[in-house]
């Protein structure tokens, strides 16, 4: 029990430090540039506005909100304070909407799309990888190159391809959005059905992409495990093949949890871009419109939220892994 507590304390401290670094980077990177974000904003905003007074007024307003007229450390404290209050300022492109408001309506779309998609992709990929390793020969010869090819299609490429085939050519799926344009978000059956049909293409495009990488990793892990001595030993004691495949699958899959934790940061990048292709109302599309409109407050908040989400998922996966793999327990808890 002592070991467990030490392990988790270590993990939590680690998580907190990473969190602070991530938040600080989010604060400091845009401020390292010669022009402060507020003058960049007002510069864009004032492009069509000749009235110097009005520009000054806008500048003052944003300078006040971000505190750019204060010393750096005070700005940082203000940034942290606002972050904990969930206050990310006012959006510039969707003025006068609050950034927190925009984010909170987008975040659930992203969470509900990405988490299940990555999870399903991970499971399917692992099953396929294990199959390829177990069946070897013919299957492997076909399956491996196909999976390598599929895993190299960029996420946006898969998204565009699915969109063109299913939505435009065969017209069996909607082209864009999270729900039909004539619907208003509510809990009616029609709305839910609309959400489900709009969900399919973005979901599967992310699933198909994540299958490949996972399957390849799982295949190598399974081949490694299939050649392990314990497999041979169990066979020579007459243990059933089905049981042995179970051992191999479990042992190969456990490290894949760490693999998922490590790759989730990369995967989310592709998945966010896939959202843009489908104009899915999640964080990816929000970020896209923020970049297009040079909406600094919105960009800053979106990146921060995505970072925090990835950190939390990684942390949880780490904890789960520590619990279920006795190899980690033996190595970490007793140490």
């Amino acid at each position, binding site marked *: 029990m002592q070991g467990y507590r030490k392990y988790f304390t270590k993990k939590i401290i680690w998580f907190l430090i990473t969190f602070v670094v991530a938040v600080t*980077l989010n604060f400091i990177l845009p401020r390292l540039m010669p022009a402060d974000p507020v003058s960049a904003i007002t510069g864009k905003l004032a492009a069509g506005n000749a009235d110097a007074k009005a520009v000054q007024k806008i500048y003052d307003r944003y300078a006040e909100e971000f505190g750019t007229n204060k010393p750096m450390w005070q700005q940082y404290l203000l940034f942290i304070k606002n972050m904990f209050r969930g206050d990310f300022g006012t959006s510039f492109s969707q003025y006068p909407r609050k950034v927190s408001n925009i984010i909170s309506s987008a975040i659930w779309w992203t969470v509900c799309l990405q988490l299940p998609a990555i999870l399903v992709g991970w499971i399917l990929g692992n099953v396929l990888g294990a199959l390829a390793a177990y069946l*070897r020969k013919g299957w492997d010869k076909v399956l491996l190159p196909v999976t390598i090819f599929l895993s190299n299609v960029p*996420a946006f490429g898969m998204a565009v391809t699915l*969109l063109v085939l299913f939505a435009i050519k065969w017209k069996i799926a909607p082209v864009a959005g999270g729900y039909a344009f004539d619907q208003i978000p509510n809990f009616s059956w029609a709305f839910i059905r609309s959400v489900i049909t709009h969900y399919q293409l973005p979901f599967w495009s992310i699933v198909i992409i994540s299958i490949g990488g996972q399957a390849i990793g799982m295949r190598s892990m399974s081949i490694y495990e299939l050649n392990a001595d314990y497999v041979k030993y169990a066979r020579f004691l007459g243990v059933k093949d089905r049981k042995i495949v179970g051992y191999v699958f479990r042992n190969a899959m456990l490290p894949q949890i760490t693999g998922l934790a490590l790759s989730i940061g990369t995967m989310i990048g592709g998945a966010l871009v896939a959202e843009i292709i489908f104009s899915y109302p999640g964080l990816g599309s929000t*970020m896209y419109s923020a970049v297009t409109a040079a909406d600094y407050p919105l960009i800053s908040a979106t990146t921060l939220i995505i970072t925090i989400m990835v950190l939390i998922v990684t942390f949880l996966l780490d904890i789960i892994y520590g619990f279920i793999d006795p190899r980690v327990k033996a190595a970490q808890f007793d140490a």
Partner: protein
Amino acid sequence: MKNTLRQLMHSSKFVVGAGIFVLILLTMLIYPLINPGNPLEMIGVGTFAKPGTYFSLYDALDTKTETLKLKDAEEKRLTSIVSMEDRVSMIEFMEKIGVDVSNVQMDDVDTILELWNANFDETSKPKGVTNAKWRNYKTLNNRLEKIGKEERAVYDVDPATNEEKKLKLVGGTDYVNVNTVTNIKTLPLGTDNFGRDVLKELVSACGTSILIGLVAGAVATFIGLLFGLLAGYLGGIADDIIMFVTNVFTVIPSFVLLILISYSIGQEQRGATVVAIVIGLTSWTWTARSVRSQVISLRNRDHVNLSKLSGHSLAKIVLTDILPYIASYVVMAFILQVSSGILSEAQLSLLGLGPKTTTTPTLGLMMNWAMLYAAHTNGYWWAYFPVILTITLISFSLNLMNTGMDQVFNPTLRD
């Protein structure tokens, strides 16, 4: 070295991967020689010209014609003028005015035309047909009237008097040899939204993207290698510090950092090289991790200890006793970095944070333009599909090479 190469040549995966990659490189080198010029030159005034060979109609009029009597020429002309949509609206019209069309087949153009000519009267608008529809029917009818004419006239307009002068008559059996037309342009992949030759642009973009990948890969591999070597070889506090930094940057999504940095740099400063370096700066972490673990396993080998006892300098030990042993590993990591660098550029560009758009195209920028102009929803596949395929092929070939190398260097994975 020679032996390693020979071993690699036995791996079919490596050979296929390297083959595809070399083919892409050769295309990049040779195609600009065949089709020189600025890849961003806007040759088309309209947008999204279809792929194919274009010859100047102006020149064709002056070209000597030959008369060819081809049996199915009339038939083909008919089906091409009266499109499926036209046939549907013709039948729709006739149904409306009460003609029995229940036995008419859609591909039987002759019958449809016959019925139409017998029943369509330009002067009387039937009841229940909207004005807009009626206008459409009349235009359709005008178009159909040309059918069956033996010859069509070409007129020259005198700009001074605005007077039309008949130049020549063109008959249905007049043919022009394509090779004798003076101006011909083949656009194998058509043009894009700005009227630029997509293939030329693609070849150039492919080169830039691979360069971005190489620079990003070199930067990432250099940093990763340096950190990995230091952490693995020195151990102790240096290891702790470097691994701490590495772990932090592994967990913070590199894509987010990429966005923040790219955005902060600003559109004007973002050349292809800058983007490449930024990508490299955000993607070195796993190279550092794996190099470190390799170095740790080497650190206590006999030959390294011997060098240490002989008083060799750190640099010398690393260069002669450690690097050669992890060289294959570093090359593999570099290959993967190149591939992910190309992908990162594409994703960044799609977000609108790619390299400056005025000088050279990149694969990501081409994709971005195609999406901005909705090429995908309008069926202009040539503007985006070749780009996706190119990115996939580059990345596929690099990964295949990597898998092949992995199987050669890690015997347990061999089949």
